């Protein structure tokens, strides 16, 4: 379910945090969906179980996950809103900051104008809008 890179400078628990948040925000993880157990994740990725447990606990505190006694953790009902509501705008923008950086740098190197870049962005947005609509759930 997750793509974990133990050698990254980003700690493993943070990688899980960010991936879970992104998957909830994009709708890949819907409310009620079950997440793999800590032990299973630890064994699959051959990483310390405590770091996964840390991530899950933090997500639970944020209100994104719900712990059930004796069963797997699930995504909370209002998770998607929680993700959106939790992170103020600039924090979320921060998460894609480096991508924006790369995009602008590449565009400049290829001597594209700001308008051309904006046009490409808009086109891509409209493409994914359709896919996004089909998958999105109307909030209750």
């Amino acid at each position: 379910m997750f793509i974990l890179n133990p050698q990254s400078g980003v700690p493993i628990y943070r990688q899980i945090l960010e991936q879970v948040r992104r998957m909830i925000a994009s709708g890949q993880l819907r409310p009620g969906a079950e997440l793999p157990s800590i032990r299973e994740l630890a064994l699959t990725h051959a990483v310390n179980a405590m770091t996964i447990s840390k991530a899950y606990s933090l997500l639970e505190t944020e209100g994104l996950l719900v712990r059930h006694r004796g069963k797997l953790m699930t995504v909370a009902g209002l998770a998607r809103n929680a993700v959106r509501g939790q992170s103020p705008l600039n924090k979320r923008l921060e998460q894609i900051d480096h991508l924006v950086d790369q995009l602008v740098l590449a565009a400049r190197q290829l001597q594209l104008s700001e308008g051309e870049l904006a046009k490409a962005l808009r086109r891509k947005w409209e493409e994914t809008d359709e896919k996004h609509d089909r998958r999105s759930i109307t909030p209750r």
Partner: protein
Amino acid sequence: MKNTTVEASHLGKAYGATRVLQGLSFSVEPGDVVGVLGKNGAGKTTLLELMLGFTLPTEGEVRVFGHESTRMPGAAKARVGFVPQQDELLDQLNVADQIRVIASFYKNWDGELMTRLCEEWGIRASARIKSMSVGERQKLSILLALGHRPDLLLLDEPVASLDPIARRQFLEQLVEISSEGQRAIIFSSHIVSDIERLANRIWILKEGRLFWQGDLDSLKESIVRLHLRGSIPLPEEAGIPGAISIRRDASFPTAIVRDWSDSAQVELERRIDGSVEVQPLGLEEIFVELHR
């Protein structure tokens, strides 16, 4: 305090005039997986052997399960497992007999675990130890340390001779052990990626001292590399707060800093009139940079 698995205060070891270790103070709780990093000769093996009571400290003390390491009673030793760097197998026996010999010393030996692991790791019970390859012998050494389900497991370069598949099997076994909660594992390894996977605490030994002891996560979040791109060059004694090392070669100086903050970033960007990019570092990079 009572439940601490290993506890050391001002531990030191010297041979004649040479001080191998000095001033080590640390504690290991049940559930910790400690990765010990250090250059060759930094004292990793000595530290492990001190903890096991093989050698006597010349200063300070270290306690295991509350007992001084050189005076551990039998009950405490039965909760400790050790995988040495060079195996101590009896060449003339075969695997089954060797396991039987070690098992005879323990009351709570888990024979089923042994059989299962032998099968999973591909060790034949009838193989003669003299004729086994280095990797197989090492696997057997590791196995023999797990049979009595120790609460404290110490490993000295356990995977040095294992191929990637064997290493992965070993890692998975350690993950399984450590996820059972109340055990402590301390292991030294050159394979930093293994430590990155398994450990939640890191000890970095540098010249006989504990340069860093703390969470792996905090270590990664604390130590970062800064890429400075600005029009004003850094003067000689540039004070970058928390800098461990600064490289000024070429046009893009970099610096390794500890506990970098947003305000420091803003300040630095103003001083060099440019941008400062923060690059998080993997454990191997951190280790190498700390030794520059």
